[in-house]
């Protein structure tokens, strides 16, 4: 998986610390990092977990653009702390297919900074997975979008926790946080979407759902001749696909879709 992604994108290994300008980088072994993306830079970054725990700190300087693809296919605990300066932008896609404890903390420290996270976790068997996505709106006029989708099947346990914090002076914050989950079999979902707001001129919303597959839709597909299994698979694929299709790092959608399909076949 890691090699395929890296070679497809022709990524170069990320140093343990230091400044990077532009290009495609990958985290060779999951270990602590301290990285700064230069002002005005355009960086794409691949983080593919190994069996490890690590903290990756990234400063995105003003006017820079950072796109991260975080693939979790092993038991791991990765924390990614991102500080986003004025008029810079970070987009992140997270695809989780295994027991793990991932944590993303994005701090919008400069005006007009943007953060966007699209995440999906698909759990089977006895997977135990926790996905945390916290956003700190420190400066005014920033925007954040969090969309995390979860599927818990078998005897798995999926947990989403997301805090949107809006500091006292972070006026005109525009934030949306959404968490949608589907449970199958004995899957267990726990979700904690949280808002902590200290400014009044803000647009903040969050929504969380836990549900099952849409039985009407399954009936409809079966009437057109699809088997029950196909109808279910198609629906779950449809549920998670858009996260991959809008991947922050382009050019690897096929690899991700394949990885998800393999996981979904175990549902």
């Amino acid at each position, binding site marked *: 998986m890691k090699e395929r992604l890296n070679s497809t994108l022709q990524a170069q290994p990320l140093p343990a610390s230091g400044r990077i300008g532009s290009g495609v980088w990958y985290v060779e072994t999951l270990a602590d990092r301290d990285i700064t993306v230069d002002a005005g830079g355009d960086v794409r970054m691949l983080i593919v977990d190994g069996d490890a725990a690590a903290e990756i700190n990234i400063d995105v300087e003003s006017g820079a653009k950072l796109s991260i693809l975080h693939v979790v296919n092993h038991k791991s605990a990765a924390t990614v702390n991102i500080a986003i300066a004025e008029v810079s932008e970070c987009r992140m896609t997270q695809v989780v297919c295994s027991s793990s404890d991932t944590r993303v903390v994005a701090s919008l420290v400069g005006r007009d900074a943007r953060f966007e996270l699209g995440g999906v976790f698909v759990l089977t068997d006895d997977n135990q997975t926790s996905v945390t996505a916290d956003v700190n709106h420190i400066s005014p006029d920033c925007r954040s979008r969090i969309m995390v989708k979860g599927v818990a099947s078998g005897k798995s346990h999926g947990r989403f926790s997301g805090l949107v914090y809006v500091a006292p002076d972070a006026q005109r914050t525009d934030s949306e946080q959404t968490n949608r989950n589907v*449970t199958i079999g*004995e899957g267990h979902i726990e*979700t*904690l979407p949280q808002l902590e707001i*200290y400014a009044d001129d803000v647009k903040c919303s969050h929504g*969380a759902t836990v549900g099952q597959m849409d039985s009407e839709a399954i009936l409809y597909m079966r009437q057109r001749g699809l088997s029950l299994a196909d109808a279910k698979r198609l629906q779950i694929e449809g549920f998670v696909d858009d996260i991959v299709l809008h991947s922050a790092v382009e050019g690897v959608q096929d690899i991700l879709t394949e990885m998800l399909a393999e996981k979904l076949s175990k549902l």
Partner: protein
Amino acid sequence: MEKDTQKDILQELETSEYKYGFVTDIETETIGRGLSEDIVRLISEKKGEPEWMLERRLQAYRHWLTLEHPQWAHLDIPEIDFQDVIYYAAPKQKKQLNSLDEVDPELKRTFDKLGIPLEEQMALAGVAVDAVMDSVSVKTTFRDTLAEKGIIFCSISEAIKEHPELIKKYLGSVVPYTDNFYAALNAAVFSDGSFCYIPKGVRCPMELSTYFRINAEGTGQFERTLIVADEGSYVSYLEGCTAPRRDENQLHAAVVEIVVEKDADVKYSTVQNWYPGDKDGKGGIYNFVTKRGICRQGAHLSWTQVETGSAITWKYPSCVLQGDNSSGEFYSVAMTNNYQQADTGTKMIHIGKNTRSRIVSKGISAGRSQNAYRGLVRVAKGADNARNYSQCDSLLIGDKCGAHTFPVIDSYNPSAVLEHEATTSKISEDQLFYCNQRGLSTEDAVGLIVNGYAREVLAKLPMEFAVEAQKLLAISLEGSVG
């Protein structure tokens, strides 16, 4: 010699007074502050309770000693010295006033704004009500009507003596003393409260509020309420009132337990307007409340609350949906202004099959206040086809306050469908300008907008209180805008 005699006589008088009847009073004073097993025994003794009740209190007290003050709420609670609290005081006789003219004009102004009927104003302010209306006969009429239906409605102290079988069966069955710090404290030292029993198949013919309001005496700081709605019965119960309530006691820790038996329906409405402290955050009530109801098969429990008072509010009226096809609702408006803090919400615990719950929470923060919604929706393994819908909105007025939302959704059953939504909004300059342009004062405009925002919850209150609650919201916001 003469002097000595005088002195001796005085001394004798003092001692004899002490000896002949002031013992109790003096002792009451000396119980004063602090909590110990002896105090718990004394409380039970003063209330003339049976031995088994004392045992229960002691058990709760011993458990409380092992507990630590909870820290998880989004509240900044000054350290409370539980040994500096007075746990028992004989009910104080209110000073009887002869007419409404003697009532504190500030209080009178609020009554008028709330539109409370004159007779009730007098009753609430402590005017001798008998002068204007025959309250005794009104009460008797109520009592007769209730007794005819077999409904028991009395103080909890009375119930302990008169209906020990019901108290033994139900008290502590929904909120055991082991539940939390304040539930344990309440179980040990509760002063008084209400007991209500609706027999099988009986529909309580009146809002118990009407009776309650006229009967509203100081219920004390550790209030205990138990409502039992037997199979197929219905009752609507209103706690508190819109009139501002001042109390010497800063710490309040009430417990409300509701047992909703098969196919019964209980509607519990609260309007809480305890003293919130002054504009600088000095004083005000600390209100730590545990409220919970258990719903058996096909039962329905609806909580509606309008929380505008108290310096600190810590309150989560909850539903345990134990029986199949049972349902619970929580409708809340919590408003904080100045330096008030509120951490309030609900728990919906789905255990039975086909259980339904609905949560509508409307937070309003103004001034420098902090207002948090905290909720839990849990679906147990066996709770097939559970449904929950939660809507938690926050309205911010001014840029110095905080509005927070902390929901937890926890589903162990794949057939559950659970939805949570939250939004945050403010009263915009544009809205105010628009209203001003149409001739409304800013204060009226804010009142209007806030009431529109809270409408869905206010509509759930019994008619007469909905109107008062609307006015209450506007009054509580005075001075928060412009």
